[in-house]
């Protein structure tokens, strides 16, 4: 018996099973996680059919089935979760119904699902279109025709209003603020009166005129939008909805598979390219994508030279010994410090000390409103650069250690100096390792949330850190980030149930961005590897 056991062990078979099993388990866990995200995230945009359920007590519920589960404590009974929407009418988006109570299920084709700028979805039957209170089209068919006729114009006006609010008025505001700050700066220097100040004040008047003009245009545009659509929801409740608030009307029950797919693609695009609405639970996540990618790029620009130079000193110039070993161990252990600690350091050092000093010296006129002395994309990126610099140092150092001595000696023997050797031979050869470090650093930075929460990420940023007003790149601005967006939508939103699918979709997007960034860096690394493959001997 014992010899048999020994023989089995000697054959190595159990070890193969052990290693294979460990790999399988890890893969299964990861695949399960990704599967869950894919299932929940991708399903979010599909236009589900709308069920009209008649209950035993005669009540009618109209909504999309989003979940089904066994009734707790009952055998063989299920209940379904209906998204009835119409939050403004019913107070809640979701309703649980025992399947046993449903006496009739139908999917009427005339039920409209309306996406609007406020209050989430509206589900009901179109009744009429009114203009200035007078009905202009009555009945489901006529109403739909009229809505279709008027919707593009309404959307155009809505975009125009948004453009005036953010761009036109925003620019005027920015200019006014700039003049105000310059006036304040003059006052601080004790020349609040005089020709210079007068010239500035003179500039203010035309700006105010411009502002009034835009304001008037806004009012005119808003009042021109007098049309409303009336929708009848469950229980005969009527909702009169201004057409200007309608984003999109659809009839899921009447849509074909192709139409649904087209609609799905449109929704995905909207999610990726639009601004969020309704405290982030509706609309898109474009600002968060932009903020994430930009923050990661700024971080990369900072962390790569810093980490590479540090690694070069450690490996190429420092005398190897106990001290350098201690530094190396310390650098490796830095990677284990909780990220929130880096965040706290970022707040204390970058924001208060560095940012505060910048404000005192360069923006005294804006004080006490901080310019750089508050969270912003620059400080967040620097904090994350600090967090990820050990990764780059370690990867670069390993690359340097792997360069064959012969390559350096060959260069030195050709009368190159150490610097020339470093730049012409060592640096190209270590480039793939640097990129490996950068890949790891970017993945870590893109997924990090905790330090960002206190160094510049906000729930909703009014403007992107990159725009058309001088100096184009606004490093002091707060920004949105997908990781924080997930946390915010999933745990801080007033309507968690409605927002949950959004969490998965956002997670999926974040994953895709990390994959995309990595693929880019990996392809670059492979190109460099082929170009600078170190000699085989």
């Amino acid at each position, binding site marked *: 018996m014992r010899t048999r056991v020994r023989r089995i062990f000697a054959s190595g078979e159990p070890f193969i099973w052990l290693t294979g099993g460990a790999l399988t388990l890890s893969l299964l866990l990861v695949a399960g996680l990704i599967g869950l995200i894919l299932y929940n995230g991708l399903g979010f945009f599909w236009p589900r059919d709308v069920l009209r359920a008649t209950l035993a007590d005669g009540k009618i519920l109209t909504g999309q089935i989003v979940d089904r589960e066994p009734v707790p404590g009952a055998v063989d009974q299920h209940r379904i979760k209906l998204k009835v929407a119409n939050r403004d009418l019913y107070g809640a988006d979701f309703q649980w119904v025992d399947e046993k109570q449903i006496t009739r299920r139908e999917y009427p084709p005339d039920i409209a699902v309306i996406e609007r700028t406020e209050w989430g979805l509206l589900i009901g039957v179109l009744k009429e279109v009114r203009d200035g209170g007078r009905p202009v089209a009555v009945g489901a068919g006529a109403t739909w025709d009229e809505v279709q006729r008027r919707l593009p114009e309404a959307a155009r006006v809505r975009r125009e209003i948004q453009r005036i609010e953010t761009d036109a008025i925003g620019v005027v505001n920015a200019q006014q603020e700039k003049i105000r700050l310059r006036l304040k700066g003059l006052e601080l220097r004790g020349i609040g009166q005089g020709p210079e100040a007068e010239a500035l004040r003179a500039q203010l008047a035309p700006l105010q005129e411009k502002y009034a003009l835009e304001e008037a245009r806004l009012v005119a545009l808003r009042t021109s939008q007098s049309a409303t659509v009336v929708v009848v929801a469950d229980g005969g409740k009527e909702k009169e909805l201004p057409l200007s608030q309608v984003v999109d009307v659809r009839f899921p029950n009447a849509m074909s598979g192709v139409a649904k797919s087209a609609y799905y693609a449109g929704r995905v695009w909207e999610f990726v390219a639009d601004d969020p609405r309704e405290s982030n639970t509706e609309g898109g996540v474009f600002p968060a994508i932009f903020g994430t990618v930009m923050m990661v790029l700024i971080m990369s620009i900072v962390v790569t030279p810093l980490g590479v130079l540090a690694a070069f000193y450690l490996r190429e110039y420092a005398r190897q010994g106990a001290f350098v070993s201690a530094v190396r161990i310390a650098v490796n252990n830095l990677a284990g410090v909780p990220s929130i600690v880096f965040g706290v350091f970022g707040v204390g050092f970058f924001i208060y000390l560095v940012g505060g000093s910048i404000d005192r010296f360069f923006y005294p006129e804006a004080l006490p409103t901080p310019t750089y002395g508050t969270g912003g994309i620059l400080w967040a990126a620097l904090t994350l650069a600090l967090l990820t610099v050990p990764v780059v140092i370690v990867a670069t150092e390993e690359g340097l250690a792997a360069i064959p001595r012969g390559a350096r000696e060959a260069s030195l023997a050709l*009368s190159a100096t150490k610097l020339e050797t470093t730049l012409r031979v060592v640096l190209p050869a270590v480039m793939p390792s640097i990129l490996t470090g950068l890949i790891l650093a970017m993945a870590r930075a893109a997924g990090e949330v905790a330090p960002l929460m206190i160094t510049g990420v906000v729930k909703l940023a009014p403007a992107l850190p990159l725009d058309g007003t001088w100096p184009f790149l606004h490093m002091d601005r707060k920004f949105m980030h997908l990781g924080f967006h997930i946390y915010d939508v999933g745990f801080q939103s007033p309507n968690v149930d409605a927002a949950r699918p959004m969490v998965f979709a956002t997670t999926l997007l974040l994953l895709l961005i990390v994959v995309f960034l990595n693929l880019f860096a990996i392809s670059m690394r492979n190109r460099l590897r082929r170009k600078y*493959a170190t*000699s085989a001997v």
Partner: protein
Amino acid sequence: MPGAVSVTASLKPSASPAPIMEMPMVEIEHLSLWYGTKIALKDISMSIPKHRVTAYIGPSGCGKSTLLRCLNRMNDLVDGVRIEGSIRMGGTDINDPGLDVTDLRKRVGMVFQKSNPFPKSVFENVAYGPRILGVRNQSDLEGIVERSLKGAALWDEVSDRLRDSALGLSGGQQQRLCIARAIAVEPDVLLMDEPCSALDPIATAKIEELMLDLKNSYTIVIVTHNMQQAARVSDHTGFMLLGELVEFGVTRQLFTNPREKQTEDYITGRFG
């Protein structure tokens, strides 16, 4: 042949200057070298004649590579090296702290045991040294590359793939490329540290033939494990043992009629 060595000969001081009556390129006097506290070269004196091939032979660890690396101060790269004595080249002591080591290495090229072309194109490998020396003009570079590759008897094989990676060449071609790279800066002395130890016999024969060509223009110092190789290519041979230069003389004489017992034991295969 073995009996030809007298007992008194082996008692002579090992550092006695060899009786070579040619124009010296490098003169080594009382050179000793320590790695930390360990002595690696003991009181070596000799002179390396101009436009000749000088070979060092000896068992592993005898210090022949260390001696070779003294000639272009490659030992500077090793921590804790201490050198005494002098190495004079054209009247200057190359260990002078005021001497720019890159100037020395311009005059003393080196070919290593493992062929170590840069992971660049054939052209860039050869042009590396001239570029370091400040040659920018493309047509000048092209001329240098062609001349060097011809000098290393490699031109015919690679002239149509100068832009391809040097790592795609065969082992022997890579080693000849390293020779071309070394002679591209037109040094006076060419050091070769066991240049054929990783090559097959045919590639070895090509490089040996090349060395006989090159000695018309360069002074060659070669370290080799292979006694036949030393006998074939060198004009003078030094036998080293445990950091000492046991015997140094004209190759034919050293192999046929060694003065020292240890040399005889080594070349007849009694140890080593």
